[in-house]
């Protein structure tokens, strides 16, 4: 009887989910209610979690709840500590959810809402969640080893080195593109710039409070910090209206880029307690709070999605980034569907807290489901805007023209009507001078969020909500930026330490200074080029980041697949093998098009040649001619980086296939490095209540 009831419930969920997806997919009218998206997502997630994830955990991985986890065996009260399942879930989610799932869907909305939505749903349940969960499992079985270490142990030195190199380069590209998003959000926005800059002294005050004034009073300090942050959003409005003070915070993109580089360098060498740790607290509260608020607002308000299901830009002519629907929608939305970066958190950090293997499904698979839901909300926030407004905010001046009249004419000619007055009124409401060509995704997301919050909590505060949203995005972009620079510094010190051991001492000042400067100049270079690029930089950097991130995912899936095969589970190898094959296809196709396309908005070489021709024939205006040689050099550099990425990927894939085929034909392979089975002695009640 109970079984029948269960079956009926799940059947109902399946039918509702299928109808919601069908509704989204065949809708061709004027607009569609956002609640359809939420319903479709929740049903897909519920079914995937209940059936697919449960099957993977029980049959493919065979999690063993009687087996002691590293947290139990190596419990030291510090980093290895058996922790309540939901606390680990919280830590894991806070670590994996960054700005990526907010920016990617916003950019991909140029194809219409449908392609991105479907990829966010199915990419996550079949790919991203599986990657996170399987990586968490294999690392838990290996004393919480990192992905790089596991690649070295299970595949060999080649796989290990490739994983290390890939991680490092991704970090550089990621930080550059995130820096660009912040710069574009602050450019000529005194309010935004003030609020974002204010987060730095606030973090330092909180750092001192927690460390020296009231040591360890984390919540107390954070509450003060959050209050100060909210105050800084309001104060920004006042600064913006002050005729003199507003000029102090009104800057060109390039000036802001230099400041961000200086900030990144400072954050990498200052002690963590002073800037990094307190800022991270504040950004985590802001992140969790705002995401919850957004979810509630969307569910209560049920805003209307105005973007068409599919736009004409699937042919590759999109203004935000060039490239056809396939493969570029899959590259643009990396975080939110499948993100290789998560495998770094799922190996190394999270397994040290896991008290029981049976929690792996909730934390690994469930954590990524929640991130996918965040991406879904970003997609909704982008598509509730009038399409004309969306394209006016996100199209770079290089595509639609510098003048407002030019831009609205061009965008309206695509069939997305928008007027100069409409944009002026909107900019005024949001407390900005202009919203044209504010590329990078953050401003349009902020406008979307402000209009959702505005209709939920009062229209009068639109400008405050807009800058709150900008502050919310900027604060955790900067957290990723400084945490990333620091991790990059440690990785570089580690690599250089192999050549000159003294460099490997992380606290040796010259080594810290040199490696931090190297890491900052690495991403600083791409940030600089991104800022001076008339096409907005996002067009080049974001796809490069997507390719890099998914390449890392492919490496993680290679390690997992090899481990499955070596554990005599060949018949289940498709669980990780299929998403892996898909990633290989999309990253290789995207790279191929980036290299060979004749379209100057897609092909690196085509763009470089085009610019070189124009420069030679003297048809470039003087200010463009001045930066042209740098841009040409950069296009070549980007091309070689993509070649390096894809070669690295294929190298690891072949290495994995080599190890698997040697194993299957009975030849010697690196042995499985699973730690021995020790029965768990943890008393249920105290650790898992």
């Amino acid at each position, binding site marked *: 009887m109970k079984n029948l009831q269960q079956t009926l419930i799940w059947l109902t969920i399946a039918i509702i989910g299928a109808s919601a997806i069908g509704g989204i997919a065949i809708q061709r009218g004027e607009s569609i209610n956002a609640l359809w998206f939420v319903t479709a997502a929740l049903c897909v997630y519920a079914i995937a979690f209940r059936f697919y994830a449960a099957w993977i955990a029980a049959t493919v991985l065979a999690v063993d709840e009687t087996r002691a986890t590293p947290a139990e065996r190596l*419990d030291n*009260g*510090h*980093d290895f*500590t058996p*922790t*309540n399942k*939901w*606390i680990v879930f*919280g*830590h894991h989610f806070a*670590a*994996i959810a*960054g*700005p*990526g799932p907010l920016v990617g869907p916003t950019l991909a909305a140029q194809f219409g809402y449908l392609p991105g939505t479907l990829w966010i749903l199915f990419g996550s349940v079949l790919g991203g969640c599986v990657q996170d969960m399987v990586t968490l499992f294999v690392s838990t079985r290996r004393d919480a080893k*990192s992905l790089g270490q596991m690649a070295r142990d299970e595949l060999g030195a080649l796989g290990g080195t490739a994983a290390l190199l890939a991680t490092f380069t991704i970090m550089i590209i*990621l930080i550059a593109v*995130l820096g660009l998003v912040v710069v574009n959000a602050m450019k000529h926005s005194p309010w935004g710039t003030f609020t974002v800059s204010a987060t730095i002294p606030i973090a330092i005050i909180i750092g001192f409070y*927690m*460390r020296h004034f009231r*040591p*360890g*009073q*984390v*919540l107390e300090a*954070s509450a003060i910090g959050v209050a100060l942050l909210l105050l800084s959003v309001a104060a920004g409005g006042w600064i913006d209206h002050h005729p003199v003070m507003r000029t102090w915070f009104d800057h060109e993109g390039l000036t802001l880029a230099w400041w961000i580089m200086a900030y990144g360098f400072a954050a990498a060498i200052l*002690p*963590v*307690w002073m800037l*990094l*740790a307190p800022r*991270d*607290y504040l950004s985590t509260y802001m992140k969790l709070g705002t995401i919850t608020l957004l979810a509630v607002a969307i569910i209560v308000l049920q805003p209307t999605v105005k973007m068409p299901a599919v736009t004409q830009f699937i042919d590759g002519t999109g203004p935000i980034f060039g490239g056809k629907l396939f493969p570029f929608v899959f590259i643009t939305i*990396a*975080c939110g569907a499948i*993100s290789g*970066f*998560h495998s*770094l*958190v799922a190996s*190394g*950090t999270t397994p040290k807290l896991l008290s029981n293997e049976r929690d792996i499904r909730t934390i690994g698979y469930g954590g990524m489901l929640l991130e996918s839901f965040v991406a879904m909300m970003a997609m909704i926030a982008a598509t509730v805007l009038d399409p004309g407004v969306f394209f006016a905010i996100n199209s770079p001046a290089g595509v639609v023209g510098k003048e407002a009249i030019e831009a609205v004419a061009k965008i309206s000619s695509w069939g997305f009507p928008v007027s100069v007055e409409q944009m002026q009124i909107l900019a005024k409401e949001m407390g900005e001078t202009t919203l044209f060509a504010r590329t990078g995704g953050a401003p349009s997301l902020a406008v979307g969020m402000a209009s959702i919050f505005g209709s939920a909590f009062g229209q009068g505060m639109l400008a405050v909500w807009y800058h709150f949203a900008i502050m919310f995005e900027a604060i955790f972009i900067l*957290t*990723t930026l400084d*945490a*990333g620079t*620091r*991790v990059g510094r440690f990785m570089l010190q580690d690599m250089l330490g192999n050549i000159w051991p003294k460099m490997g001492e992380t606290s040796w000042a010259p080594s810290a200074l040199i490696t931090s400067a190297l890491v900052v100049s690495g991403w600083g270079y791409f940030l600089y080029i991104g800022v001076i690029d008339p096409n907005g930089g996002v067009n080049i950097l974001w796809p490069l*980041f997507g390719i890099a*991130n998914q390449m890392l995912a492919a490496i993680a899936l290679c390690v997992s697949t090899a481990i499955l095969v070596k554990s005599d589970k060949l018949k289940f190898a498709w669980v990780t093998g299929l998403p892996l094959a898909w990633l290989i296809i999309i990253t290789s196709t995207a790279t191929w098009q980036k290299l060979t396309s004749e379209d100057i908005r897609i092909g690196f070489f085509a763009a470089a040649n085009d610019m070189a021709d124009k420069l030679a024939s003297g048809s470039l205006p003087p200010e463009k001619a001045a930066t042209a040689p740098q841009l040409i050099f950069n296009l070549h550099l980007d091309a070689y980086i993509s070649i390096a990425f894809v070669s690295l990927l294929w190298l690891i894939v072949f290495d994995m296939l080599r190890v698997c085929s040697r194993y299957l034909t009975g030849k010697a392979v690196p042995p499985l490095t699973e730690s021995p089975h020790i029965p768990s002695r943890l008393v249920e009640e105290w650790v898992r209540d």
Partner: protein
Amino acid sequence: MLKHLKVFWRGVRQLSGDDAYERYLRHYARHHADAENPPLSKAEFFKQWQDGQWQGVKRCC
């Protein structure tokens, strides 16, 4: 209701690390109660705990 709030508050404290010192003292009492050295002071413990938090990849995109 009050019980749920209490559980929630305990979760928030644990998630943020607000109760890290209390947990450390419990761990100390269980595992090192007979040791020669007394447990660390709250300020000293917090220093070590905070510095230890930032080893490895803790935040991503």
